[in-house]
């Protein structure tokens, strides 16, 4: 197709999109590379140099030169033999993921991956990082207060009353594991069998009990047995036809 630089499609082809025009309203696209559409005098007039000069009393305004940066970085001692590529700078703000409408506080979820795959679990809410805060309750399914990714979860239509639960003390930093201390390893350590007992701090157990007590009281016997059972697929099950 023949694109003329004077038509709208021709202008778009040369890169003058509507957004470009809002930023550079006085620019006109070249007819071809380095061939401008208007001559010197027309371009002078269009760019408004006459208006700038008029404003400055007949001359172009002179701006003071910015002081050159005196401090220069010390020359590096080592240059790599081949070019080392630097990763591009990423500037984006992390936002809380938008959840599907089916996931609300109190929804029973089926975990699909991880250690507790198949377990049915109560959703308590969403953390600032976007992950879901869930609990078994621990007594019923063995799932503690835990973070879970909404992508690895089936949301059922069954809802449990969690209005009495207080989740203010749980946030992402609560779940971050403590950094293990790296001790200097001596010869003797390699031969010794060091067993580190993994004890759960008492506050965590108490927090778990508090959360679960608020939920367990409102559960019927059917719901209790429901939350204690793992979800499995059996012969004849058609998960694409199942309603959750």
């Amino acid at each position, binding site marked *: 197709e023949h694109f003329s630089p004077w038509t709208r499609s021709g202008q778009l082809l040369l890169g003058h999109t509507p957004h470009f025009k809002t930023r550079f309203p006085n620019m006109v696209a070249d007819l071809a590379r380095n061939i401008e559409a208007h001559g010197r005098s027309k371009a002078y007039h269009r760019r408004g140099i006459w208006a700038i000069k008029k404003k400055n009393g007949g001359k172009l305004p002179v701006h003071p030169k910015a002081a050159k940066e005196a401090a220069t970085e010390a020359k590096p001692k080592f240059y790599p033999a081949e070019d080392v590529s630097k990763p591009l700078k990423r500037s984006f703000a992390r936002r809380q993921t938008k959840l599907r409408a089916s996931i609300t506080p109190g929804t*029973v979820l*089926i975990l699909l991956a991880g250690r507790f795959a198949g377990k*049915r679990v109560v959703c308590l809410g969403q953390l600032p990082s976007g992950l879901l805060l869930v609990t078994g309750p621990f007594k019923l399914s063995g799932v503690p207060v835990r973070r879970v990714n909404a992508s690895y979860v*089936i949301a*059922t*239509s*069954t809802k449990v009353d969690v209005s009495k639960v207080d989740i203010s003390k749980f946030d992402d930093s609560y779940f971050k594991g403590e950094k293990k201390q790296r001790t200097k390893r001596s010869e003797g350590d390699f031969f010794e069998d060091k067993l580190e007992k993994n004890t759960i701090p008492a506050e965590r157990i108490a927090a778990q009990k508090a959360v679960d007590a608020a939920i367990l009281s409102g559960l019927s016997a*059917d*719901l209790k*047995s*429901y939350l204690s*059972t793992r*979800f499995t697929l059996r012969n004849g099950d058609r998960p694409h*036809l*199942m*309603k*959750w």
Partner: protein
Amino acid sequence: MPFKRTVEIGRVALVNFGPDAGSLVVISDVLDLNRALVDSPTTTRRSINFKRLSITDLKVDIPRLAKKAVLKKALEEADIEGKFAASSWGQKLARREAKANMTDFDRHCAAVKKMKRSASVRKAFNKLKKSA
């Protein structure tokens, strides 16, 4: 064996294929060997192939190409919807739909009930077997 359900004007049929599958319609006229004009209180009168219909036992007394008001009155007086829902065919369809709409919780409760039932049956059976 003679046919008991005939295609005739006023015969109630179940649409078994298409966007409105599962709905009851009344045969308003027969167009030719393959197609009938079919009508219902909630839809406009349209032609449909007999292959898309399953004819039922039920029939209403209406004239050919009956008006909507006449059709509606006849269906209400005969309580066709109610009679069909009460029939074993209608009940079977309702059961099928209920099963398909079971949620995960419903499926769990049904499974638990089944296990309990079979456990009690087996217990009774074993008791009888032992005493025999």
